[in-house]
């Protein structure tokens, strides 16, 4: 189904300035690096996009690290231990 979608939209898409600015502004608000700055500071769309990529990469790294950590933690969990009880109780 995603195939059909991508084919559809791979034809040239038209987007207006306003639309572009609107979408990029939304992204900017999410970025810790530049989203917190004063509103009056204008940031170039290019900069926002660059920071967006960096931020997603950073989040991916964090998820990777946390996955490793959780994997280690789970390995150390004994089936009869309190952690296992916690996990079970969270599942119920």
């Amino acid at each position, binding site marked *: 189904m995603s195939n059909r979608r991508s084919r559809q939209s791979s034809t040239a*898409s*038209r987007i207006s300035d306003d639309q572009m600015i609107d979408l990029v502004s*939304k992204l900017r608000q999410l970025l810790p690096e530049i989203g917190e700055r004063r509103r009056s500071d204008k*940031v170039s769309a*290019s900069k926002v996009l660059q920071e967006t*990529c960096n*931020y997603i990469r950073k989040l991916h790294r964090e998820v990777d690290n946390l996955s490793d950590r959780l994997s280690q933690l789970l390995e150390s969990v004994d089936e009869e*231990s309190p*952690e296992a009880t916690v996990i079970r109780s*969270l599942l119920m």
Partner: protein
Amino acid sequence: MASLTNLNPTSTDLVRKKKKSSASSSSSRRTIADSVSDSEINARWRSEKQQRIYSAKLIQALQQVRLSSSAVSSSPAAQKRGKAVREAADRALAVSARGRTIWSRAILANRIKLKFRKHKRPRTTAIPAITTVVSTGSSSSNRSKKRRVSVVRLNKKSLPAINRKVRVLGRLVPGCGKQSVPVILEEATDYIQALEMQVKAMNSLAELLSSYSSSSSSSGGGSALPPPPI
């Protein structure tokens, strides 16, 4: 315990929902549903409720990883397991998105693909045909819409650079490698918030687990979540 062996994310989703509804009162569920529909799309991933839903799915997914890999415990398996956890965490995130976004559907579809062919999915490096056609006329003076103070500058000269960056961005968001500019930007907006929630949820779960493992040997350890009801 029966639900732990269930490997289908959508059906476990249903199982969980059923359990939730029977556990919590129906009135509280209604109010939550109302507040969700009232809230802005942007707030979707930021609610505590969403994080709780995700945490539950994550724990469930992690249990499956544990069960499936408990037989193998050699040292190279540890790395594999980290990856398996990562995949499980992403799948849980995609399930939490309930198929409303391209990125979440892509994660789930990727998993099905992996099921049939075991090799890694080839990274699409093909350059998607994206052309940003900007309306003619000066960019800032004749706005048809309400004049909002924009916080973003759109430099006409940097359009090729912008396009390039959007394409890079599209490759970072699952399933968006070949999407159009507006779709990539919208998906990225949602995806970032989902990732933030994922990091938060995984962090608190890791903290919880480590606090329990440390409190079993020594004392202390702040409890982020209430103690297990026994």
